[in-house]
């Protein structure tokens, strides 16, 4: 069995930061393997432990290779990275654009299943997996927090809102979007990390994927990025921990719950 896992680099912003044009200045961003993708990867690695292959695909420039190597260290057999000037020219890589790229990768790799994280921690579009399944004309299951595979069917548990879960049978092949908590992602050993540092990452352009000039025209244009104005009405206490704790204790006593 061959499972293709989409891997994204997700960024978090420092407490204090500056904006540079339509983005946050790189100096204030820390990047990591997207949390949801770590669970998707672990699920794929566990399912192929006895036989099979896990291939990751990442859309991103050179700088994401450290994150791709994290995925290799955590058990992926091979990694593909897609990037070129045409992708770099997009002001935003929206879910349908990414799905079009990934569709071409699936056509190349012919996996039995595709796993994505439910969403990326920074952009939170949460739509790429479903869009990809539609393009492939495959079945899909989203927000999967439990998975049992049969030869022709994936029995999935989908996490809905409000502590409710849906049990669904989905035909294979399928794209499944994996929710955090489905498993316990492993830590890579030093040996794994060293091996991953030396591994080859296959880099492909859109042309090499057979995507023509007009295959990826997006009509979505990012026009602004700004820090929202705070609407906070919180009373924030200053002082030493003892002083602020005393203020909080007074607030709590005034609510009457402590009696």
């Amino acid at each position, binding site marked *: 069995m061959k499972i293709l896992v989409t891997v994204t680099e997700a960024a978090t912003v420092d407490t204090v930061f500056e904006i540079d044009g339509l983005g946050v200045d790189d100096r204030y961003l820390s990047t990591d393997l997207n949390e949801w993708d770590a669970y998707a990867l672990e699920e794929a690695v566990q399912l192929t432990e006895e036989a099979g292959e896990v291939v990751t695909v990442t859309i991103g420039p050179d700088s994401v290779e450290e994150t791709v190597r994290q995925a290799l260290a955590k058990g992926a057999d091979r990694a593909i990275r897609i990037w070129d000037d045409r992708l770099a020219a997009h002001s935003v890589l929206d879910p349908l654009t990414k799905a079009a790229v990934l569709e071409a990768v699936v056509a190349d790799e012919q996996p039995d299943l595709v796993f994505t994280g439910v969403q990326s921690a920074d952009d939170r579009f949460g739509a790429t997996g479903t869009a990809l399944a539609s393009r492939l004309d495959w079945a899909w299951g989203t927000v999967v927090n439990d998975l049992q595979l049969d030869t022709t069917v994936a029995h999935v548990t989908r996490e809905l809102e409000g502590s409710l879960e849906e*049990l669904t049978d989905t035909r294979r092949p399928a794209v499944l979007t994996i929710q955090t908590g489905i498993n316990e992602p492993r830590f890579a050993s030093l040996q794994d990390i060293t091996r991953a540092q030396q591994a080859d990452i296959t880099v492909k352009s859109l042309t090499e994927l057979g995507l023509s000039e007009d295959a990826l025209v997006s009509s979505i244009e990012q026009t602004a990025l700004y820090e929202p104005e705070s609407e906070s009405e919180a009373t924030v206490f200053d002082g030493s921990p003892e002083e602020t704790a005393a203020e909080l204790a007074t607030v709590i006593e005034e609510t009457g719950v402590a009696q």
Partner: protein
Amino acid sequence: MTVLAVTEHRRGELRPVSMELLSVGRELADATEGDLHVAVISGDVEGYADRLNCEGVDTIHTVADGEEFNHDIYTQAVTQLAETVEPTVLLAPDTVNGLDYVPAVADRLDAPLLTDAIELTYDEELTITRERYEGKVETTFDIDASPAAATIRPGVWPRANGTGSAEITAFDATIDESAVRSNVTGYQELGGEVDVTEADVLVAVGRGIESEDNLEIVRNLADALDATIAASRPVIDNGWVSADRQVGQSGKTVTPDLYIAVGISGTVQHVSGVRAETFIAINDDPNAPIFEVADYGVVDDLFEVVPALTEQLS
């Protein structure tokens, strides 16, 4: 222009976001003196249509196929309805089920899609505002296409009300059963021994606690207040606290007299589950979104403030 808003229901009830969808749909339609079309699919569509017939709704399309949500039926029905109605903007809730079919519809209609919109305006083209980096920044996008699709964040727009005079019409979708590849076989409620929805006082712990061993200081605070411990998602995923204590979108909605959030950044997924009389937040990041909803806050190291607070209360 025409706006088509696809509502959502679950286990016999329209979800509240459906009524919010009518408000934002009306706002957008008003921008061009256009019409608001609403769709309701599967289950008791006539009953739902009566409740959706609020002020400002022009037409309600009912699609009777199916009982509960099934993404293959929704995808086919909404795609066909959109091809008939030809909306400029297609709207749906940004929910687990909304994201389970809207991207497929957008793909089939060749409509650009943005999810989790918190603001939508229309002036010759659609402009969408959404958050990035857990709400630290907001971004705006122009979408120059018709149709364009967007999912809207629940809880942002008011719920529509009043009684409308919409035309209610049955839409005859052609469902290709061979393309229905997923079947819902059942539901399960996540039970557990602890009911955080009944607690008057909750001490909720988040990622900032860093390790399971550190939970001790939170337990001590909860003991001093005779409070129940709750948690945000990362703590549950790590298995440090049982899943029945999860507060937020995928967990429980709580309404305590006092909520103390310890080391919780305050993503919308978490805070949408909290309606507290008094809300206290302790977090070392002054820009953490938790302070947008808290009544009282301390910006400092929780490992110092929480034990000091326990001391004060003991």
